[in-house]
């Protein structure tokens, strides 16, 4: 995961937004129409998958909530909602981040990529998506969008990783089915497809 996304930074974001966020409760706060006294911009311009969209965002709203509930991008999953599992992983620029642990207001000038934005312009699957299919990497599939995004971030900075490097890149993404070996095979296959 992005070392720049520290817990401190998340908490700072919450304070700036004049709203308290407890770990599990942030999801619910996200919909609250509270804090009418605070002067906070509500209509944000977000760049998601190359398109700029205007979205009404509450100050305490997490990026996972905005993407799933406001923009209909349900590919990312909310499995823990507290930065443990990685199922909500998205890219900020080319860096993998947990979208459950980012306040939407903090990323309004960033380029956001979700799993829905990975296909090429002509509709072909990305190398990671293709590699994962060929190696039958997913099992239940719930963690898969997050694994795809973590692997995509790796290959953008290191297109020819060792198996050890690939393993470290996926270390923030839990898979309860235990498909780790197969995800690693998928990343190595994707690297071959890219070369």
């Amino acid at each position, binding site marked *: 995961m992005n070392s720049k996304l520290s817990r401190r930074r998340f908490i700072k974001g919450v304070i700036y937004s004049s709203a308290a966020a407890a770990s599990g409760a942030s999801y*619910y706060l996200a919909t609250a129409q509270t804090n009418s006294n605070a002067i906070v911009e509500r209509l944000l311009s977000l760049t998601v998958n190359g398109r700029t969209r205007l979205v009404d965002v509450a100050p305490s709203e997490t990026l996972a909530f905005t993407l799933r509930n406001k923009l209909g991008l349900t590919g990312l999953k909310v499995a823990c909602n*507290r930065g443990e599992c990685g199922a909500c992983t998205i890219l900020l620029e080319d860096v993998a981040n947990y979208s459950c642990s980012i306040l939407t207001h903090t990323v309004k000038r960033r380029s956001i990529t979700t799993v829905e934005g990975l296909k090429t312009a002509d509709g072909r699957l990305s190398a990671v998506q293709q590699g994962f299919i060929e190696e039958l990497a997913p099992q239940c599939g719930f963690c*898969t969008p997050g694994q795809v995004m973590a692997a995509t971030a790796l290959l953008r900075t290191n297109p020819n990783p060792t198996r050890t490097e690939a*393993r470290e890149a996926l270390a923030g993404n839990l898979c309860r089915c235990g498909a780790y070996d197969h995800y690693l095979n998928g990343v190595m296959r994707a690297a071959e497809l890219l070369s």
Partner: protein
Amino acid sequence: MTFMHIGKDFTPPDVEGKVTGDAKYVEDFAPEGMVTARLLTSPLASGRVVSIDASEALRMDGVLGVLTADDLPPSSAPDDPVLASDDITYIGQPIAAIAAISDSIAESAIDKIRIDYERRGFVTDPLESLVEGGPDAYPNGNVLVQTNSLEDENATIRGGISKIKWPPSEIEKLRNGEEPENVEFADGWEYGDLSASFAESEVIIQESFVTAGTPHHCLEPRSSMAYWQNGKCFFYASTQSQSAVVEPLADLLGIEPENVCMISENTGGGFGSKGRVYPTMAITGRFAQLLNRPVQLRITREEEYYLGVGRPGMQGWVKTGVRADGTVAAVDVIIISDGGPTGRNSASSSAQHISVVYTPTAMRLRNIPVFTNTAPRGAQRGPGQNEMSAAIAPIMDKAARQLGMDRAHFRRVNAPHSESPVYESQGPITSAFMAEAIDIASNMFGWTEREAAPRQRNGSKVRGLGIGLGYHSAGGSGYDGLVRITPDGRIHLHSGVGNLGTYSYAGTARAAAEVLKCRWESCEIVRGSTDQHLPHASTQGGSNTIFTHTRTNWVAAEDAVSKLKQIAAIEFGGDADEYEINNERVFKTTAPNQGFSYAEAAAKAIELGGAFSGQEYPSDIHPITQRAVQGLAGTGLVGVAKDNLPKRGIAPGLMISMAEVEVDLETGKHEVIDYVGIADCGTIIHPQGLAQQINGGAVWGFGMASSERHVYDPQNALPANTGLYQAKLPTIMDVPIEMKSGAVDIADPYNPAGGRGVGEPSQGSAVAAVTSAIADALGHSFNRVPVTPDMIVNFANKKDQESALLAINTF
């Protein structure tokens, strides 16, 4: 036999959606007008509700309704109620539900509900309840008297509450590895002459053991969403089957099964916890009916650890007698199960594991399911077998060593074969080739040389080798298959099997393509929603899908082939048996030009009607399948049949694992360095899917061996492990960077495609290989899982362990 499809890799149709994000899970559906429900849960471990006042909550803007136990069908203890009232039995138990226009309003409204509770005493450790004078989980007792047998491990346990107490002296004996005497048990079984078999034994070992209860950690929580249209309930849930949950859900909602439409296209992990309905489904369905709006009940990660079912824990004692030739003569086992508030236990299947993989001549089980005020318990991957596998492996190692016998050879001497009798009935199995599996594993791992070599020691790190066996009954019969050929030439393979990500719904459908001798590209699998007309199927659990549903697909496709030939005989003359099929054509064997395509035959089937196109169907198919066929009648050539193929006894899924671990005596951490898993699962149906199950099961085994467990604060019964990183499942850094797997690949004679399942034993053999390897590294067995770092550090420093002997649900 040479197959066109069986044994070959293919791309299951649902994989692409998983990598693109298009695959939809419960919370991804949000129909127009959907509102949400939230739960009010118990702050008490035990007690009852005296009164509930929700009037203030109901006056809030945006609040739509409240449900309490009075609004739902009554339930009696020890059943797990949808909403508790007379018997609150664990912290986090749902007591009331609020529906509102948003999650946050529902959450705020929950705070406005006033409840008067009556507190009761509680207990978190079965042995503390079993001792005379100890607290009981229910006011009227501490032990489940089970009244139904669990041939289907996903079924609900039925029974009553009774009271059994042991003198403190006998509890102490159990804690110290001795046999308690003159005490009462709730249940058990026995076969063979136990005392005579012990008398023949050269080595007798008796020890106590303890295995922790564990949460399932499915990444998709058990959320649900429902709406009603024209008296029919459309229900979105995360389940292990589309068709097997229809009837229990209809019961829960008080409607007829034909009025339930179950939608479950993808399931984000089940592992036994979603084999049947989960109680909170009743809240979603009832609210949706009352409010006449779509209602979503989202279950959070944290709530999963309270109200999600977990694996029961065990506290036990086992006495094992082994003859001089290494054959196991007798096993005597006592199991005290931690059944949580539901009494769910796996004592019998735990003991059956021993009867299958070590084939003792005589055996006895005595057991008591004890209630505790902890999470409800249910089936979890290899229920009973896998935790017993972990406990028994180091004990069997000890016996082999005392006889001076190689540990792998000891397993081979006792390995089940096709004529081995199993279980308390000493009944037959369909086939077993475990000696062959042990040989393959030994060669791949290099067991003999590595076992003979001295163990490596590097500073504070010591290495050990381990071997483990896994077993689970892996196959059923009697379900229905349904295939349909349409006039466009498409072959529709209808499947009611759930989609947990094993891809066995697709692997088994290929058995139908095999019989129809058709291209896979001509087939499409119809599944995901019961309004797609799905046949009666098993739940996708119990490792059974491969065996059970290759059979149903096979018989349905055979019915279709028979109809193709009959239609051709009507069209071109002669008898049906003068015709054969190939290249998606049916034609006269002696004159191949006299025939037509499957597409033309399907059009003819519609014209002919009757059984050819589903207007008539066999009388022995299940009502669910009957309704499916009625829905399809007249749309093509319908092949439908019940699986009446012969089956001899149990279809065993068997595994052997070998592992090398490195144990750090300074930090107490252990790491799996090398791992091999070999399955005896009949013919390989789908190689990639099989590797996924062997390796994925192994990861589960590593978690059970090292870190996964329920933990409760004994002063308040408050669960302490309520996160993924607390009751910790393995991460990618906790598993070897490369894992090796394989299979015997000898056909099972009772399956037309030759396959048996193996999804569950793959965990049991892995956890056993790790506990065996840790004991090998330390020269000491804890007889406990998980083996946590503090246990290893205490052992290395010759200190007492933190927890009392055999204590459970504690740190």
